[in-house]
């Protein structure tokens, strides 16, 4: 059986990056959950490395070779983990710009786990108010648990309602794995054209 493709898109800017750290934890969790049934190939897309390519795509309307490869990897993925730092009450501009240049059908029906990092837990609903609608627009299937990691989460136990960070990571990555294993293989690009007679007939008064 072919291995599944898990693609991780991370918009962290630091090196090392807390956002990347969270992304890696989520990816490990998903791979572990799928381990019994499928092998998983994980590819990480660091948007920091593509920042200029993304800006160039906005200006020229087409992706350069490196960005094209990253967009294609996301399009073909069986599952996607998308992680951004929260800037000014929402996803970072770099994160949004990447999903602005992706083909708007590339995520159709794709299981997506959204996660974010931030300095304070007070921004955690940005996941629900910004990321979830973004991926709903792209017709992705967003798993129920979105993972927010504030600075304090890395060193403290969670509250009674949601559990600590490790618990949330395990729950979210398990949900992603569940959707991935029940999903038919990612479809190839379909460029079928509607025959011209059909296009003409649709216009007859």
């Amino acid at each position, binding site marked *: 059986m072919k291995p599944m493709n898990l693609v991780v898109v991370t918009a962290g800017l630091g090196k090392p990056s807390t956002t990347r750290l969270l992304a890696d934890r989520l990816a490990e969790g998903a791979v572990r959950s799928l381990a019994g049934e499928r092998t998983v190939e994980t590819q990480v897309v660091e948007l920091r490395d593509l920042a200029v390519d993304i800006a160039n795509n906005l200006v*020229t309307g087409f992706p350069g070779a490196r960005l094209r490869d990253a967009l294609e990897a996301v399009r073909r993925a069986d599952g996607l983990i998308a992680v951004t730092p929260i800037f000014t009450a929402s996803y970072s501009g770099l994160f949004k710009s990447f999903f602005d240049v992706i083909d708007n059908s590339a995520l159709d029906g794709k299981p997506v786990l959204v996660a974010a990092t931030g300095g304070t837990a007070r921004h955690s609903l940005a996941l629900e108010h910004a990321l979830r609608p973004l991926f709903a627009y792209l017709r992705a299937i967003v798993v129920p648990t979105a993972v927010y990691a504030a600075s304090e989460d890395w060193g403290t136990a969670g509250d009674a309602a949601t559990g600590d960070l490790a618990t949330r990571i395990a729950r979210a990555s398990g949900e992603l794995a569940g959707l991935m294993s029940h999903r038919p293989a990612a479809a190839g690009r379909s460029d079928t*054209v509607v025959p011209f007679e059909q296009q003409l007939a649709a216009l007859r008064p």
Partner: protein
Amino acid sequence: MQFGIFTVGDVTMDPVTGRMPSEHERIKAMVAIALKAEEVGLDVFATGEHHNPPFVPSSPTTMLGHIAARTERLILSTATTLITTGDPVKIAEDFAMLQHLADGRVDLMLGRGNTGPVYPWFGKDIRQGIPLAIENYALLHRLWREDVVDWEGRFRTPLQSFTATPRPLDGVPPFVWHGSIRSPEIAEQAAYYGDGFFANNIFWPKEHFIQLVGLYRERFAHYGHGTPEQAVVGLGGQVFMRARSQDAVREFRPYFDNAPVYGHGPSLEEFTEQTPLTVGSPQEVIDKTLTFRDSFGDYQRQLFLMDHAGLPLKTVLEQLDILGAEVVPVLRREFAAGRPAAVPDGPTHEALLAAAARPVPASS
């Protein structure tokens, strides 16, 4: 194979001198560029159609009629004529008139236009872009081929016993290209009618256009107009040349960096690597253009964008001298070498007239 130039008709500040030409200067410059194209031995001049500043060519057949009176051989064309916002009745009449005035040296490239606000200025809805392109052309196609047309459609008032005048010269409609940057529907439309397909490939990587041209060729054969290799393909290109490559790069870089379309984005080096733009010696332009055949197969028309990014007229005319003297003669020779006999030449009125006169085998 035909070689020519196409112009957008933008009024753009020269970023080196800071000088902004007037609309009058730009319009006269476009005419001077067309006359130069004939002088240096090119085959085609094509103008854009735009209805918003900073562009000047809102009335292409007026300009082309003027150029027709001042040239002898040049084919006058468009890039593109807006089939969505233009009334097909008026397009049929304007281009038939131009055809008579220019003794047949006329064809046109249809496009949808991508500027949203233009549609309502002409009473149209951009959401209907593709259906407008399909219905309007279906009518235009009939108006040039049937003397009396009864017609009813979705986007304009019906026609009863209507005759578009004048009738096309010698009863042969102008050749039509369908221009597209991204729509497979337009490639399909061009294939259905057996018309030409112009892939305006100048701003994007070739992979995308290889798919689009491949689809057009395959569907052209599907509809019985010939083999895929006989489909009529046009391609764009944009170049800036000096005898020495480094001089071309040095002189063009400020124009590139501030160009309206791609400026302030990728570097000149990145953009030339990814798109047809060539900045260098005439030999580099020859080499790059010849690779188009490897990607797209033998084709019929190559149009270069030369008056781009605010280049002054004097420089554009120098560029045309180099194009006509050093580049196109070599390209003609190289593209002719190894070209299969079954691949048609670029379309002309004379060739279409001869094809129309050829007896069609009786079917019963």
